[in-house]
Structure formats: C-alpha cells, structure tokens
C-alpha cells in the first residue's frame, strides 16, 4: 500500500526489529509506525471495547490509533524511532481483561 519515494538505497542504513515476533525491516530514521505501514501491516491493534481494527491515522502523535507495546508500555508508534533489534508487541490489556463487575448487594 505504501511506497518509499526518492530513496537512494546506497545512502540509508537498514535495520530490523520484530513486531509480534515477526521480523520487520526498516530504514534508519523511520518511525515504528512508518516502518510497519511500509511493511504492509493494515491493522496494528484492536480497540479494547468493540474490538475494531485500528492503524495509524494522524502520524503526528495526536490520535493514539497507532498504539503498540514497547518495553511493556503502550506507546504511539508514530512517535518512536526504530532501533536495531527493538522488540515491538501488539498492545495488550491482559491485566484488565476478564474482570467482570459485580452487583452491589
């Protein structure tokens, strides 16, 4: 879907990281969001309440649709630069899922 423009392959440093355990290649200077979009990911996460697919919308740190988990924290992938060997996971809310409220008796 996305293509790189005006890239001189000889002048950029390439690196790789993992997203959900799968290797993704990127160029130095890419944000995680850009690299994932470049790699063809169409769904970064699902919304926690309705389970709808989400991927980046604004690419400038405002919309929070591009959330991923890095180092155990949910972060905006459009605001994080790729690093070699970085481990990126899909967001998870396991600590909070499955808890059902009880009635006040």
């Amino acid at each position, binding site marked *: 879907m996305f293509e790189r423009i005006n890239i001189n392959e000889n002048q950029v440093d390439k690196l790789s990281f993992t997203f959900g355990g799968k290797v993704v290649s990127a160029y130095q200077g890419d944000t995680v969001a850009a690299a994932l979009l470049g790699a063809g990911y169409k769904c970064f996460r699902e919304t926690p*309440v309705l389970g709808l697919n989400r991927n980046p919308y604004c690419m400038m740190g405002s919309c929070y649709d591009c959330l991923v988990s890095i180092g155990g924290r949910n972060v905006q992938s459009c605001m994080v630069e790729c690093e070699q060997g970085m481990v990126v996971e899909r967001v998870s809310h396991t600590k*909070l*899922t499955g*808890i059902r409220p009880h009635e*006040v*008796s």
Partner: protein
Amino acid sequence: MKTLIIGGGVVGLSLAYGLTKRNEDVVVVCGSDEDYNASRGNFGLIWSQGKGLGCPEYSQWTQKSISLWPSFAEELAKLTGIDVELSLDGGMEYFTNKHEMEDFIESLHKVKKSNSDSQTYKYLNHEQLKLCVPEIGPKVVGATFMPGDGHVNPLQLLTALREGVRLGGAKIFNGARVKRVYRSGDLYNAQLDDNKELSAPRVIIAAGLGSADLAPMMGFKGAVVPQQGQLLISEKLPQFLKYPSGTIRQVNDGGIQIGGSTLDRGLDNKECIKTVSELASHAVDVFPCLEEVNLLRSWACLRVMTEDGFPIYQESKTNPGAFFITCHSGITLAAIHSVLLTEWIVGSERSPDLSMFSEERFNV
C-alpha cells in the same frame, strides 16, 4: 411567546428544548469557542450523592431529575438519533482517608434524614467493596454507594440538545457574544458583538460565568463565581468499571476519566502538573491497575458556582419575563430543566414552587 435564551450550554439548551416541545418560539444565542464553556469540559456525572446538605429541596429536585433522565435520554435518541450513553447503575465514592469517609457518611445521613424520598446510600467497608469492585487497591478504606446515580457522555448530550432544539424549530446563533441586554417597553433586547440586535418579550440569561456581567444588566445580582476543576483522560481500556465515582469513571469507549479537583483560580482555566499528578495518584491509589496506563490528555474547566452551591432560578421583580438561571449541575438537572423548570418559566398550572432557589436567599 417568543423567548430569547442567552447561553447555548446545557442549561440554556435544556430550557430551549423544553420550550420548543411546548411549541414555543425560541432563539438561542450561543457564545464563542473561546468562552469558558462548562458544558464542554465537565465530568458528565448524573449525581445525587452528597448533594443537598442544608437544602432538602435541592436533594428532592436532584432526585426528581435523575428519575426523569431515562425518558429524557430516550426521547432525545428518538428525536435526534443521538445516543447520550446514559448509565444509571449507581455511583461510588471511594475513600483512602477514614476521617474524610466518616464526615461524608455523616453528611449523607443528614441529607437522607432531611429528604426521606432520597435514595438510600450504602456504606461498604474494604472487604465488602472488594466483592463488588475487585480492582480496588489496599489503600481504599471503603466506599459509599448511591443507587440510581450514574453518568452520561456530556458532549453527546450537548450535541443531542442542539440537534433537538434545532429540529424543534428554534434558531441558534453560534459564535454570537452578547455584550448588552436591555429592555425597551415590552421587549428585551440582546445586543451582539457585531451590534446585531435580537429581541423578544421573554429573555432567559443562562450564560454560565458570562451571567456575572449580563444578569446585573437586568437587575439581577448575578452572583456566580468560577471554581476550577482539572480532568484527565486515559488511553482506552476494556470495560471494567461499572460504577462511576466523583473522581474516576470509565467512558463508553473505554477511556478512564479522572477529575474532581476544586481550586479557586479565578478565570484561569489552565491545568497544572501539581494537580494533574495529585489526581492521577489518587486514581492509582484507588485502582492500582491504572499505574501503567497512559494518560492521553488533561484539561481544566471552570465550574459555575453560586455562593451556597445550589441553583438560582429567578424571575426579575422589576422586569417581568426576564429570568436568570444558573446551577453547578447542568448535566444532572438537564432532565428536570427541560420539563419542570420549563413549566415554571411559562407559568403553567404544573409550575413547581421554586421560591427557595431565588436569589433573595443571599440578601442577609
């Protein structure tokens, strides 16, 4: 009779909505985005818990409004197609300080004694609370629970009211600030910033903090003061909080909204790190699972307060047909404002006695 409503927030629009339902001719003058707009920054609670100490009529009025809310929300949805996300499953107040909790229970007890119609609160100690809300942290000493309290999406409410009022045939002027209100003969005139004039035989000043300047032009005291509250919203989480509290609630799309600070800062509506971090750390004390959760945004908004915290419903003695309406709890009271307060404005046979909410109580 044509009515000119100065103020396009929830209070003004609830009255506009009630009046259009009675086929009255209504014009709403809505200020600019730069105004303080309590209707856009509030917490969205529909709340009776803790309200009405020293004024049983306010407790009754609040309770009555909450009982009208389900049909009000349903009617708005039917008319406008907008779901205001009403939920009235009951409201909690969580405490991490035993003395604060005891004082609060004492005030709930007094309110209940003064208004036997009010809902019966429950006190839950830590162990009892843990059974209903398993996510509470060890610092929580207990909670009080009020059945029937709840919350709504306040922005959806504002949108639904605007749409409902428009569909009811009212005209809404947007970005129109009133700089002067005056009477000429049997008509009340509002002069806008651009010198355009609107007039009607009935005028309602419901301009929030703007009423401090406008209401005195019609002979009211117009004693409203700002009280700043700061609010935070987190990233979206799976639904786990069934019961909203005065400081923490989970909104429909999953975000955790945190608030409840009360600061006297005049007209300053900027949040500060100190208060934001106090609010966040209280929320983490109550729900430790929020510690790793990201905050998305914070903002501050100004409550519109009267000296005693109760509403003011006043018709001018010298300018009949001119009304000054203000309250802190425009969301909770939206339902009753659209019904009984509207009846009072038009002076119908169903008009309630609202004399205890007159400005004259501040005369002593």
